[in-house]
Structure formats: C-alpha cells, structure tokens
C-alpha cells in the first residue's frame, strides 16, 4: 500500500512513469501498437510519400542522381499534365475498364448460376466442387500460358471449331482482347462462385421453404428471398473482383504482351513498359498514385454500400 502511494507521489522517475502508463489504459494500448505502427509507416506510408515526391520531379534512374536528390529537377506536376494528355495512358485505362465491365459481370452471373446449382445436393457434388475451384488455384502466368497455347492458330480451339490455322486469336486486333477476357473469366469465375455459394448457403432454408409453401415459384423466390439476402456478399465479391481485374497483368503479358500493338495493353502492362522500357520512373509514380486514388474511391463506395445494407 505504501509503495503504491510513494510511487504515485514521486511520479517523475521512470518507474513512476510506467506505473502511470499501466493505469491509463489508452496510453498502454498505444505503446502496444507502436511497433506495428512503425512497421506500417515503413511499408505503406513511406513508399507512398516517396512516390508522391518523385512524381513531382523529372527524376530517372539513368542520370545517377540518388532519389532523395530528385528535388533538383522539381517539375511542379508536369507529369500529371503529361498523363492527362497521354493517349496511350487513356487507351490502356479504357481497355482495363473494358475488361472489368465485361469480365466481372460475366463472372458474377456464371458464378451465381453455378452457386445456385451447388446449393442442392446431387451425386458427385463434392467432386465437381473440387474441379470447379481448380482454375483459381493455378498461377495466373500458367493460365496465361495455357490460353496462349489454346488460342494458337494451330491450337485446339481452332481445331475444335474447325477454323483454319490462319484464323488468329492472339494477333487479331479484336479477338486478342476477347481471348484475354475469356481467360480471365475462366480463371476467376470460381472465386465468384465460391463467395456467392457461401452467401447462398447462408440464406435460411426454412424461409425458402416458407416462400415455396406460399406458392412462390423457384424464380420468384430466388429474386425476392435469395438475392436480397445476399446483397452484402454480392457487394464483397464484385468489389473484390473489380479491383483485382483492374490490376490484370500476368494473363495479358503471357498471352499477348499487350499486343497486337497496344490492343490488349492494360494499365499494369502500360506501367510495366514505362518502368522497364522507357525508365520514366517518376512518370510511373504519378500514374500509379492516380490509379491508387481512383481504386480507393471505388472500393470505399463498395464498402460504404455494404455497410448500409448490413444484415
């Protein structure tokens, strides 16, 4: 008892300080999270700030100036202006969005239909379930290679469809994009299926039964009971896939290298080429930062929607 009183009265020493910290729960918590906070600072905040800093300069690794001296070539945001004027950037952005607005809805509807099939028990369900999930387990680069081989002029797709070897997929200005989208749909429909199935299984079965007994057809019950109850799961799945799709790189890189010309060049491919081809790292920093902000806004909208429709 006396020791507590004395340590409280002589609270200036180091022991007294820690005693006070231990009593003050908020402060104690702060000390516990401090290490991870510093770690986060280095792996997230520091690179972001560095990127922001570089994006306002003409700095490139070719000149031998260390990055922290980049301020010597400060350009007042010239690269942002260049980006707005860069038709190749806008082309890449448009193609990325195109992949997203075709592939994600396709994955959603396919995944939803498959999930509806898998809600019921049927013989071989477990086996088909495992097979269904395989594509998303494969490394995207390997999927890219598979579809690269499938879509060759002398490949199995043409052979199966009875098309001549001259009928090209990956080097045709329109069909190259279609091929990449097909590959993405093939690989990522299973993820959509998995998430949507989990959501669908969460719909209380007795409510579905009640809806049936009230005379609702399967289609009516699906629209009025199952879908509304899956709202937040659907939002999660779509936001997740949309953001992932925006970053598409490996598939397109292996299948077409962004070609023919720039016909399948997505934002990630464009940035890659800028980084290792043109070595304009500061320009890449400016674009990367812009994309990050746009994606964050999309994700935040999705998450806000989910929060609003909770339950």
């Amino acid at each position: 008892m006396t020791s507590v009183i004395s340590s409280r009265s002589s609270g200036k020493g180091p022991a007294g300080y820690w005693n006070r910290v231990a009593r003050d729960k908020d402060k104690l918590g702060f000390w516990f999270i401090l290490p991870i906070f510093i770690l986060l600072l280095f792996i997230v905040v520091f690179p972001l700030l560095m990127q922001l800093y570089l994006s306002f300069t003409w700095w490139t690794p070719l000149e031998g100036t260390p990055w922290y001296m980049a301020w010597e070539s400060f350009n007042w945001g010239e690269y942002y202006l260049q980006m707005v004027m860069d038709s190749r950037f806008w082309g890449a952005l448009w193609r990325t969005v195109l992949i997203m607005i075709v592939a994600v809805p396709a994955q959603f509807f396919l995944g939803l239909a498959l999930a509806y099939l898998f809600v019921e028990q049927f013989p071989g369900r477990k086996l088909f379930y495992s097979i269904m999930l395989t594509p998303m387990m494969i490394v995207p680069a390997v999927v890219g290679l598979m579809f690269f081989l499938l879509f060759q002029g002398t490949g199995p797709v043409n052979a199966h469809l009875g098309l001549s070897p001259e009928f090209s997929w990956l080097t045709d200005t329109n069909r190259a994009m279609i091929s990449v989208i097909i590959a993405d749909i093939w690989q990522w429909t299973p993820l959509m299926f998995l998430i949507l199935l989990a959501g669908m299984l969460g719909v209380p079965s007795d409510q579905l039964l009640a809806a049936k007994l009230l005379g609702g057809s399967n289609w009516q019950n699906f629209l009025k009971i199952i879908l509304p109850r899956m709202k937040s799961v659907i939002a999660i799945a779509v936001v997740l896939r949309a953001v992932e799709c925006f970053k598409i790189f490996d598939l397109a890189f292996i299948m077409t290298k962004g070609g023919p010309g720039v016909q399948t060049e997505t934002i990630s491919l464009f940035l890659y080429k800028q980084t290792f081809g043109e070595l304009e790292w500061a320009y890449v920093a400016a674009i990367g930062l812009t994309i990050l902000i746009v994606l964050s806004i999309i994700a935040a909208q999705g998450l806000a929607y989910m929060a609003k429709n909770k339950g």
Partner: protein
Amino acid sequence: MSSIQIDNVTKRFGNFTAVDGLSLDIKDGEFVALLGPSGCGKTTTMNMIAGLEDPNEGAIRFGAQSLAGMRIQDRNIGFVFQNYAIFTHLSVWKNLAYGLEVKRVPRNEIDRRVKAMAQRMNLTHRLDQTASKLSVNELQKLAIGRSAIVEPRIFLLDEPLSNLDAGFRAYMRAELKVLQHEFGQTMIYVTHDQIEAMSLADKIAIIDKGKLMQYGAPLEIYNNPRNRFVANFVGSPRMNLIDGELREDAGSLKLMVHGGAEIALSGRVRKDILDEQRHAGVSLGVRAQDIYLGNRRAADDIEMRGVVEVLERVGPRRLAYIQVLQTIFLVIDDQDQLHVGDEVPFFLPSEKCMAFDLSSGLRLGAA
C-alpha cells in the same frame, strides 16, 4: 378447405422408420393435434402432408385428390414454422403480401387483404417496419397472418407456441381457437405438449415410434386410453401405473406389485382382467384425481395404506406422493388434510381403474 386422408403411410430414413403404417382420416374443418414425444414421427407426418417429404409407402389425399407428385407450390398449404421463418429482410407488409404477390393478385386486392389481415392480427402499426424489428409475439402473429392471407385449403402448425412466454402462450392458444373458427379451415397442429393438444384440438392423434397409438376426441382419449402409452402420456399429473404379476388364490385375484405391495382386485377392473385370457403381467392404471381419501364410497373399491412422503402444491390443491412399500401412488389432496409422515388409508375406485397387458401395452376388458 379440404379433408385429408392419410392412408397407411410409411416413411423411412435409411434404417430408421420415422412413420410406420400411419392412417388418419381428418374431416373438413377439423382441428387435429398430432401429439407425441420428441422423435415420434409427428413432424415427419406433417412434412409429408406439406410435400416436404415423400412417403415410401401409402398415400395422402386431399379430398379426392392424390398428393403424389404434386409440387409444394401447388398444394396451397398454410404452414406455420416453429421458428416462424419470417422474411426478416422484408417489411411486415411485404411478408403478408408475399403469397398474394407471387400469385399475381391485383394490387388493390392485395392492398385490401393485407390491411384486413394486419387489422385482424393487430399489426397495423407495424406494417411499414422491417420484420426483423418485431417481437417474438408479433412474429408469431405475422407467421399465422402470412399463411392465412392466401386462404390455404389446410393449415399446418409445427409447435407454433413453443417459443412464446407463458402468458402469451395462453393468450395465443385461445386466439388460435378463435382463428380456426373464423377461418373454418382444417388445421393440423403438431405438439409434444398434451395440455395444448387437449385444450385446442377437436381430435388428437397420439403417435409413438412412428405408429398411431390412438385417435379420438380429447376427453375420449383421456377417459378411455386404448393402451398403456396413451394412459401414461395424457393427463396431468400422470396416471398411476402400477406394474405387477397376477396371482389367483382361493377365489381372490391379486396383483403382486413389482415393488412388493399386494393389491386385491375387485369390482369392474377384476372383471376386465378376467374377461380376457389370463395375463401374467398386468399394469393397473388409475388417475390421481380418481383416488380418494377418507371413507370408503363403494363396496368394490380397493383399499390401500401408505405413508405420505411428499406434498407438492399444484394450484389450489396438493399432490401427495404416498408410498406403499416400494411403490409410489400420486393422490390429490384437495382439502389439505394430509401431513408428511402420516400413514393413511386411500381408495382406488374399481370403476375408474384400468388394466393394461404389460407385454403388449393394450387395454384389457372395456374399450
């Protein structure tokens, strides 16, 4: 509205026979309770009527119409689930309207019927709220209203009162009876609570291990149980059932009770037993309400003596546990005349005693 014939229906799940050759004839507008202990097959029977399960053998008919192969959606059955299965993501209005909307009833007609049903169920002030905000009692009313609004030809209720608090349960019991009158619909009610069944139903079907034990009006079942299971299951407090072996010597018939006591049988129950072939094992049944204390009222009544072990207050009366050697008799003490530890005489009225064959469980004599 419809009558229901359940004809020799059997339902098996793997090796387990849930319902075993069950036959029931339910008349149009009747309120029938399926009563039995947990796992006796009453819910399976109900599910087969609703079409949620298909019988392995036998047939179920609504009037003249066979149910075999008919889709759930087309059966037009009002089903109230034990946990109500309310669409909690929809408003109360939408819940009530569901069965009408899916049948594409005109808007103004839906509007009129939903309002009327809400009024009837006391939910008008809740119509625009999400159903998830309702209390358990309101959920119950909504569940019944949602089924009733489509005017189903029969109503199935699966232990609908078991989640309610005691006060509301009593109210809802009365309410259900009134509703059944108003709707004039055939209702089948599954319960394991015999008091609920006794107070609500026109007829009770008692089921045990998938088999129909007895089917009849509540009082008929109470007064004339056809076998030992029914006698034991119906009535509160439970019927005294004293198991023993018969012994005849020098013209007198005695029941040598397994606990050691001897009961000299006389009067009607003696005749009941003697009418049948000799049964070695017999169970003597007599309700606590029928056993009396004090002085003998009829020459044939069987006199017993025992020690009062426990007195338990049940409402205005007391329930006495009177021990005769190893056997306990439940006796109603309605004048607070007994004391724990007293040795008292009591009488089993011969007219009210029932005898059951111990091996088959069947009632002996009068039926």
